[in-house]
């Protein structure tokens, strides 16, 4: 039972990080109808910046710088690449994000090389015992931070002008424009926030039990894509639910892998995609998605 609880707690932690990434993915989609496949690259960038500047400025400042740089790079890519070609087909824009992803990832992979960089998290590899369940302090902090940020973000969707404008523009861009909503501005803010969230997730995804920053961080972050899709691509609630479902499923399959050898080793890696496919077969629009994803 305690092992189960341990897997569950670790899964929730991983899932809340996936949710942070998936939320960024979803708000970008809502604001600009682009599937941003460069999101994993943003994550890698955030981690890299933090790891590089941490030795000289300390952890807290490094995280702030990492978040700022990632947010600005996300904003810059939107301003330079995507907002200029708004008339292009959405599919072309999505492929452009893939190009951006390859570009950033290749460069960072070269820079990181074969080393494992540390982001210098002050909690290191400490382990906390919670009622008989062991969990790394990193994972526990992740849950707290992720839920605070997600709470703030959800409040922003509901109560700020930006949030209302984002939801209005996602539903009916033309009517929103007629009400004086500037979609370009709403979109710019969305990219900023999404970039910042990716950097935050990077801090915890590179912490214990993960040894540190390796280029394959991007692949780990990719699990957030099926999370966003199974939740319903245009739903923030869906991103949260999808992230948690994928995180818990992955953690449970990894934890019980010795009992599941008939599935082959490392099945947990594909679990997010299997779950996504199962959900989509039953609910094509995702758990919380709106039925018609094709807007006119």
């Amino acid at each position: 039972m305690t092992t189960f609880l341990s897997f569950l707690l670790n899964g929730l932690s991983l899932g809340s990080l996936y949710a942070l990434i998936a939320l960024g993915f979803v708000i970008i989609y809502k604001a600009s109808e682009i599937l941003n496949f460069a999101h994993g690259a943003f994550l890698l960038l955030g981690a890299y910046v933090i790891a590089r500047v941490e030795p000289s400025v300390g952890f807290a400042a490094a995280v702030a710088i990492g978040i700022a740089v990632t947010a600005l790079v996300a904003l810059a890519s939107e301003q330079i690449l995507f907002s200029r070609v708004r008339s292009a087909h959405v599919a072309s824009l999505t492929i452009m994000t893939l190009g951006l992803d390859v570009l950033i990832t290749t460069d960072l992979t070269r820079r990181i090389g074969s080393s494992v960089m540390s982001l210098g998290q002050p909690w290191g590899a400490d382990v906390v015992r919670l009622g008989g369940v062991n969990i790394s302090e990193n994972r526990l902090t992740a849950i707290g931070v992720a839920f605070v940020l997600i709470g703030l973000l959800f409040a922003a969707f509901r109560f700020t002008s930006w949030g209302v404008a984002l939801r209005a523009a996602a539903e009916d861009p033309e009517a929103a424009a007629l009400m004086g909503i500037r979609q370009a501005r709403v979109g710019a803010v969305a990219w900023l926030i999404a970039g910042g969230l990716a950097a935050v997730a990077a801090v915890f995804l590179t912490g214990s039990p993960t040894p540190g920053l390796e280029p394959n961080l991007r692949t780990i972050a990719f699990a957030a894509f099926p999370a966003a899709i199974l939740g319903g691509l245009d739903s923030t609630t869906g991103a949260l639910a999808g992230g948690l479902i994928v995180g818990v499923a992955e953690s449970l399959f990894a934890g019980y892998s010795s009992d599941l050898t008939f599935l082959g080793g490392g099945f947990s890696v594909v679990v997010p995609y299997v779950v996504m496919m199962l959900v989509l077969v039953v609910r094509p629009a995702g758990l919380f998605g709106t039925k018609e994803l094709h807007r006119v």
Partner: protein
Amino acid sequence: MELDVSGLQVTYAGVIRALRDIDLRVGTGEIVAVLGSNGAGKTTLLRAITGSLKRHRARVDKGQVTFGGRSLVDAHPADVVNRGVVLVPEGRRVFGRLSVEENLKAGAISVRSRATRAERREKVYGMFPRLAERSGQRAALLSGGEQQMLAIGRALMSGPRLLLLDEPSLGLAPQIVTHIGEVLRQINREGTSVMLVEQNAAMALGVADNGYVLELGRVELSGPAAELAASDDIASLYLGRGHADGTDREAPGKPGGPGGPGSGVGGSGSPGGPKAGTAAQQPTLSRWTPPPRGRFGLLGAGAVTGAGRP
């Protein structure tokens, strides 16, 4: 502040001319009705005023649109709102997944001051008590009439000096249409000019000071609303069956101007509807039987007999 449209010519995709040489004026404090059948260019005119042409791959070739002396041509829709011109779009277009209150907030996005927003919201709730009762509900759950109220309220949140409405009576019950007419008068009394684009001529000319009739992208008639209402053309074409028409219309969807005279006419829902032979004496509306090009379409119904070829 007055709206002045002069010599306006608009072309879609570089080839389809939707408006030609339109002259139109909405004076300060006026209510102006713009009538016309489908494809007459009413919506295009509104797009030209609200800066939405670009979205529809259209542009102004010639002419001017000014509000308070400043050009609105090529302005961003948000700038048009900031200058005090706001549109209640056709089909209401409320944000269905947002609550009533959030819809109003979306309408007030150009308003910086929280106090002003709150004050306008209370005013809208005062004008439409039903919206206040349902402030927390998703707009998609409102009835058609309530959605139209919300669409009007949402537009008022920006504090417009000129309110544009695109067929607000579309698909609504007669008493709600009457109510909308009263609401527009009230809004106007409080100092907002109104430009009302309608097919329901009875209501539109009932509340308006002046009116224009568009046909095939041109202004075919204009003058004081009372005179237009008294004129024979308008009486037989728009007022004769004016009321029933508002509800009839939804059924076949958007016939889109050049649908061809013969196609889908029977589906309009009018019992035993006037077919080609009888169309001459009782044209319901020229949209089902597009008038021959180049003539004043409203009067051209006689020619339909010829058009209804076997």
